[in-house]
């Protein structure tokens, strides 16, 4: 018996499998994580990372497989058992009761007795202790929905620590954070590791993996393809492991030849239902034959900007397309009239907006254009014409399977996105609004989609791109604008800026204009 083997892994999973109906989300996965380390997990969207962690946390039940915690075989039928085993999890989508206070959220499920007051008093005390120990301060009496996302995440971490978790799982914690907030998170994680806690970090960002983890596992299509020491790998190597082949991280494109201005926006403002101003006086323009990329951390008003341009919400200010004013509030401020003006819109969320998931593919082809005269015969809709149209589009955009009668929800994410793109691009619009074009789409499809966008630009169309992926912004944009807190922090030439500068701008810091 040598000493190294004596330290049993903090977590060991053996042969975990899990299927959701016909989808095999996890296939025979095994993994070992040593105590006091940060272990990264990467993988494409839908690779099965969240599913695996949810099994470890008792949120889902594995079909097969065993879990060992600190060397002991442990059954985790529910989250209660996971918590008892010292596991804490911060979900991709926070699990907080939004109209409760921070304190109430923290004690929920971990109260000391049947009465509330003593529990709250005790929690308040330990909260101050934890806050000073790890630099995790939040106002215990604040209502959660009034906190920033970063602070809400702290509440989630505090929840786990309050339950004395030794193992902390974080599922894509930085997706919603500014670079500065993310840095602070990683400082906290390092503190925790020093305390001897074990951390599993799921992320899509190779840089985060390289910077913080000790070991890293790669998942692909439900399987664990590799586990390596971080120090022994490189970003390119990881990317290759993720998708199973060499990845082109660059899109081929010729320099843009911008022509006349298609879209002009002046002093645009959007106020949401809660009365919060989300877009605070934006002015920009997009010319024919160029792609303007808008970078920014999710939640800084980009979505609202797209929505108001696409006619989903109303706003104030001026929007001109091809020199003509567009109605921003009246009856003709909806998506229908925007389309009539030559604006096509690929929305950020295809499942909630771009498609009707319960409609068949052919019905979705008419979505938004269902009033097109070509689709009508008399007072009825000409379904045959729409179906024929769909078949052509599916061919040209390589939608698999090319079956117009298949319900949208039964296509994979990438193919769903292709259906949306086909519909919008083939309308031959003057202006294309496009949000998160490749979110949840695998690398192969990403290449295809990027090519389509660039081709449209080369046809002389104006394109406004919103993406939270800086890589994508760099790959596609001819000009980059950064949005922070509802305002544009400035425009940059992609050739003359870098991730660091944009990252600072995304956090609201603008360096002196460098020429």
């Amino acid at each position, binding site marked *: 018996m040598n000493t190294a083997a004596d330290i049993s892994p903090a977590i060991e999973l053996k042969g975990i499998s899990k299927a959701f*109906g*016909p989808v095999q989300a996890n296939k025979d996965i095994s993994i070992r994580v040593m105590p006091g380390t940060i272990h990264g997990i990467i993988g494409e969207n839908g690779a099965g990372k969240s599913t695996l962690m949810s099994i470890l946390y008792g949120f889902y039940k594995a079909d097969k497989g065993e879990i060992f915690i600190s060397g002991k075989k442990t059954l985790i039928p529910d989250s209660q058992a996971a918590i008892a085993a010292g596991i804490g999890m911060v979900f991709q989508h926070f699990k907080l009761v939004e109209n409760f206070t921070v304190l109430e959220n923290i004690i929920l499920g971990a109260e000391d007795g049947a009465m509330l007051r003593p529990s709250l008093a005790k929690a308040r005390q330990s909260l101050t202790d934890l806050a000073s120990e790890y630099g995790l301060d939040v106002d215990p009496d604040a209502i959660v929905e009034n906190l920033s996302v970063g602070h809400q995440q702290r509440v989630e971490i505090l929840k786990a620590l309050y339950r004395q978790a030794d193992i902390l799982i974080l599922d894509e914690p930085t997706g919603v954070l500014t670079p500065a907030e993310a840095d602070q998170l990683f400082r906290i994680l390092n503190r925790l590791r020093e305390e001897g806690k074990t951390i599993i970090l799921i992320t899509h960002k190779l840089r985060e993996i390289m910077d913080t983890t000790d070991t890293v596992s790669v998942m692909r299509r439900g399987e664990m393809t590799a586990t390596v020491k971080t120090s022994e790998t490189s970003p390119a190597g990881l990317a290759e492991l993720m998708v199973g082949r060499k990845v082109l991280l660059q899109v081929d494109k010729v320099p843009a030849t911008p022509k006349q201005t298609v879209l002009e926006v002046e002093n645009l403002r959007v106020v949401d239902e809660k009365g919060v101003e989300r877009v605070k006086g934006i002015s920009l323009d997009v010319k024919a034959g160029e792609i303007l990329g808008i970078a920014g951390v999710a939640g800084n008003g980009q979505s609202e900007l797209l929505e108001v341009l696409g006619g*989903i919400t109303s706003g104030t200010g001026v929007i001109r397309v091809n020199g003509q004013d567009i109605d921003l509030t009246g009856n003709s401020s909806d*998506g229908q009239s925007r389309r009539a003006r030559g604006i096509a819109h690929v929305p950020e969320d295809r499942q909630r*907006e771009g498609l009707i998931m319960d409609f068949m593919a052919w019905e979705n082809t008419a979505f*938004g254009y*269902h009033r097109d005269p070509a689709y009508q015969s008399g007072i009825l*809709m000409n*379904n045959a014409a729409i179906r024929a149209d769909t078949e052509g589009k599916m061919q040209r955009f390589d939608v698999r399977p090319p079956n117009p009668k298949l319900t949208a929800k039964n296509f994979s994410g990438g193919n769903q996105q292709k259906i949306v793109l086909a519909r919008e691009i083939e309308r031959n619009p003057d202006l294309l609004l496009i949000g998160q074009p490749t979110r949840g789409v695998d690398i192969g499809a990403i290449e295809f989609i990027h090519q389509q966008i660039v081709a449209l630009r080369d046809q002389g169309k104006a394109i406004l791109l919103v993406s939270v992926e800086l890589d994508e912004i760099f790959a596609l944009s001819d000009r980059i604008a950064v949005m922070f807190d509802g305002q544009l922090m400035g425009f940059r030439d992609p050739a003359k800026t870098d991730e660091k500068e944009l990252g600072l701008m995304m956090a609201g810091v603008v360096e002196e204009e460098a020429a």
Partner: protein
Amino acid sequence: MEKMPAWADAVLVPIISLLLAAILSALVIVAIGEDPVAAVKLMVQGSLGSTYGWGYTLYYATNFMFTGLAVAVAFHARMFNIGGEGQAMLGGLGVAVVCLYMPWPHWSLALIFATLSAAAFGAAWAFLPAYLQAKRGSHIVITTIMFNFIAAALLNYLLVNVMRPKGSMDPATAKFPETTHLPTLHDILEPFGIAFSKAAPANVSLIVAIIACVAVYFLIWRTRLGYEIRAFGHSESGAKYAGISPVKITVVAMLISGGLAGMMAINNVMGEGERLIMNSTEGAGFIGIAVALMGRSHPFGVFLAAILFGFLYQGGAELALWTSIPRELIVVIQALVILFTGALDNMVRMPLEKLFLMFRKGDA
């Protein structure tokens, strides 16, 4: 990949649910000390065994087609219109106003205008709940429940204080004039040499109801408006993206729904009662819920389910007449149908899905 073929979801699930409801109903009959087989025989005999029975069965079915369609259209826009009862009551008012206060040369003209008026009154009663849901986010289920009670109070007031003829003791309007009386199936079928009971109330409204089924089919699946209603029903955010106004669709769908519920009045008020009485809807607005659920919100399904419920209603009335089983048995059956096809529908679906998955794995 679907978990289960579409036909299984559309046909098998409701049929199994219905079967479960039937078995439980039989148990209920046994539990109250009666013979379920005899009861079913009596129901079949009484509702389908004579043209008289058919006449009543179809009469009730006509009511349920209208209210079932009403609920179904609202379902397509993902709204639960539980206010069919109140809308149908108001529809009755619409019919009464047309028939009593305007002179009509012939029933056909009266029918057209009564239909329009019934639809308009029913729609009007659905308008406020729809508007409040669309504009102020008030839950339509709660508002329509409230509007049912308000409709009952309103009708009560009008029948007692305004529309009751002088000297009459019943809270009811005067008899409608002769020229507004609708031909019954007896009158319609006589020229074709088909003898149909003269006593049964089924009337020309049945044809209107069938036309309404066809019209709703076209509306929902073949028109732009129907496309928009369904799109909105599946995803409100999607609808907004596509430029479909949620406010407009909510209001329009509810107006259609309310209008259909109101149109029921041409059957029960104009066709059968020939005057407006209290509670002339007899709960048909609520049965529409069961009918729409069973019919999977499809007009053809609604048509079949309406006939089934017409049978249950007439059969139940016969039971009450000839045995000591109270008429409330139908209410119980109706409850069980709603429970199994509506609320407990996953109880049937989940095992069925597993079954199909097993078969598929077996294939692969």
